[in-house]
């Protein structure tokens, strides 16, 4: 049984320039213990999609009525879309779903110690006493590899290095034992050496805690190392999804292929770097038809410019939204 089901999620932002579609008819589900990599360029809507799961988007966000997000908890399913009051949201926010943000400096309150922030959330979400919460927090800090955890517990975010802050962030997110963890570019701001440490840590934690993870990143190498399955987004649309080996070894969609070709690889230094031509269009000027057609090198005529492609099976559990699938030709 899946942990979370997202069906037909569509989200628009009301702005002065008009309605901007940030997420367009996105569906996926995650099983307990499964890691889904959500990949795309900036502006592809990956963060907005993840934040929707906790309804964390700003007030000008409009969810389409057919959007469904169902979280399967121990005591029955929760329809996230129907939660209105902040009190009801507590079940989801920080309770069964936790989030790790990209910039650990910006996501800790600067004037509170790391420890008091960790204890605060535990007091809200569990019925622990202050003493228990403190003990658990120190234990979690220790668990994520922070040495001298009880001293660190009393320190402020600015006293820690980037890698340590991100570890503390992970410890904090996991201390409430969430069912689902959303990690929004958790390693992007870190050095490669520290990134490797954080990735290893997260892999260990998945095995220990058995939670589902949505791992948002633009780095396909990080996805290959962490995820079980991958979903690729472009301009708010999900364009390809499938098991990680399938998608990385046999990418079907021209955009996924482009992303992989653009990646500098160490085993072949002579291979020229192939950028995906053009720039992401402004969200105000969303292309008609297939959203990728303005940059696609394999366009097959007017159908790409006018008709939005539906899903086609391109392998086992591997789906792609591209007109090339119907042509019966391999892209």
């Amino acid at each position, binding site marked *: 049984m899946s942990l979370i089901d997202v069906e037909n999620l569509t989200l628009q932002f009301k702005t002065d320039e008009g309605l901007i579609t940030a997420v367009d008819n996105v569906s996926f589900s995650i099983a307990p213990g499964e890691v889904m990599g959500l990949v795309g360029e900036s502006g592809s809507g990956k963060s907005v999609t993840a934040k929707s799961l906790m309804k964390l988007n700003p007030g000008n966000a409009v969810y389409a009525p057919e959007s469904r997000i169902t979280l399967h908890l121990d005591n029955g399913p929760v329809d996230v879309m129907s939660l209105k009051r902040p009190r009801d949201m507590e079940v989801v926010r920080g309770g069964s779903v936790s989030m790790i943000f990209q910039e650990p400096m910006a996501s800790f309150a600067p004037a509170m110690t790391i420890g008091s922030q960790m204890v605060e959330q535990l007091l809200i979400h569990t019925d622990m006493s202050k003493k228990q919460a403190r003990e658990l927090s120190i234990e979690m800090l220790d668990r994520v590899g922070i040495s001298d955890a009880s001293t660190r517990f009393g320190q402020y975010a600015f006293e820690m290095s980037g890698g340590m802050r991100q570890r503390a962030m992970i410890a904090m997110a996991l201390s409430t034992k969430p069912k689902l963890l959303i990690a929004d570019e958790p390693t992007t701001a870190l050095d490669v050496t520290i990134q490797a440490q954080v990735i290893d840590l997260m892999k260990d934690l998945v095995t220990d805690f058995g939670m589902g993870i949505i791992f948002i990143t633009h780095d396909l190498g990080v996805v290959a190392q962490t995820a079980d399955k991958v979903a690729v987004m472009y301009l708010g649309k999900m364009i390809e999804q499938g098991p990680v080996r399938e998608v990385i070894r046999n990418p079907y969609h021209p955009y996924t292929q482009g992303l992989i070709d653009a990646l500098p690889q160490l085993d072949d*230094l002579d291979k020229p770097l192939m950028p995906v031509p053009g720039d992401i269009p402004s969200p105000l000027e969303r292309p008609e038809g297939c959203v990728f057609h303005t940059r696609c090198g394999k366009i097959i005529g007017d159908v790409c410019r006018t008709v939005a492609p539906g899903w086609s099976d391109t392998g086992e559990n591997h789906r792609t939204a591209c007109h090339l699938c119907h042509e019966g030709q391999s892209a």
Partner: protein
Amino acid sequence: MSTENLIETKDLSVGFPVGGKIFNKSVLKAVNDVSLSIPRGSFFGVVGESGSGKTTFGRALLNAAPITGGSAHYEDGDVSYDLGKLTGSELKEYRRRAQLIFQDPYAALSPRMTVRDIIAEPLEVVGLCNSREEVDERVREIANLCRLNLEHLRRFPHAFSGGQRQRISIARALVSKPRFVVADESVAALDVSIQADILNLLKSLQDEMGLTYLFISHDLSVVAHTCDHVAVMYLGQIMESAPTRQLFRSPRHPYTKALFSAIPSLDPDDHGKAQKLEGEIPSPTNRPTGCQFHTRCPFAIDLCKREEPRMETCEAEHSVTCHRWRELQLAD
């Protein structure tokens, strides 16, 4: 100095005073005794973690960080400058010849200036053109080289995507026809699909304008693809320096090796068998004794804790700062 090198540094150090009070004043050495030669026309890479001093090194070569020890020389045809002692008109001329491309194209462009004014500003500051027409002509020329539409020149930066902004930023750096360009993490803020485009652009501009780049990056795979020569920095010192292919084929320093093995592989079944680095880069105010890297080095012995290794040449153009480079077999 040899005529092939555009820039040569000898024991270059950059220090910043820290601690306000008179008695606990100390000097933080961000760059510590760096000796490097940057050949003319090369794409010279500097890699390292944050806090390794790579940015400060780049800035020192642009005369934008105080050189507190050693020397740096710039030599190009009939001009030769000692970068520690530039003043007046010499400094102005050096500013024209040496330019910087910043990391974040969203922060580097003034939102209140049109693209034309942004690109033209260096010309006006250095006083390179005599008339407005001449400036416009030069701006159009460089915009063309950087694949910007002439249409774009009248707009403001907010109308552009990250990749386009970085092209504007490059056009601004190159408009004064510099000889030496420091590109400080110039693709780090960009998406992969755009990153390749900017790297290709930098390469083609190098051929067209005869530039020499100092390319600062933390991303080894980007460096591997663009640079001819790479220097690896750690805590303000050069740990290893070699032609790119040689460095990647046979790294000699354990730190270089560790940096390579930290790169996430695109193959889901390859989990990086090589050693991973524990811990983090120490603070430069509290440097380790002996070899700077010994606190994280899996091969450290007593000697490494006691004595600082010197940079040694192990092959032509390949030098390494490690006590044990002769005995360690790092290449796989």
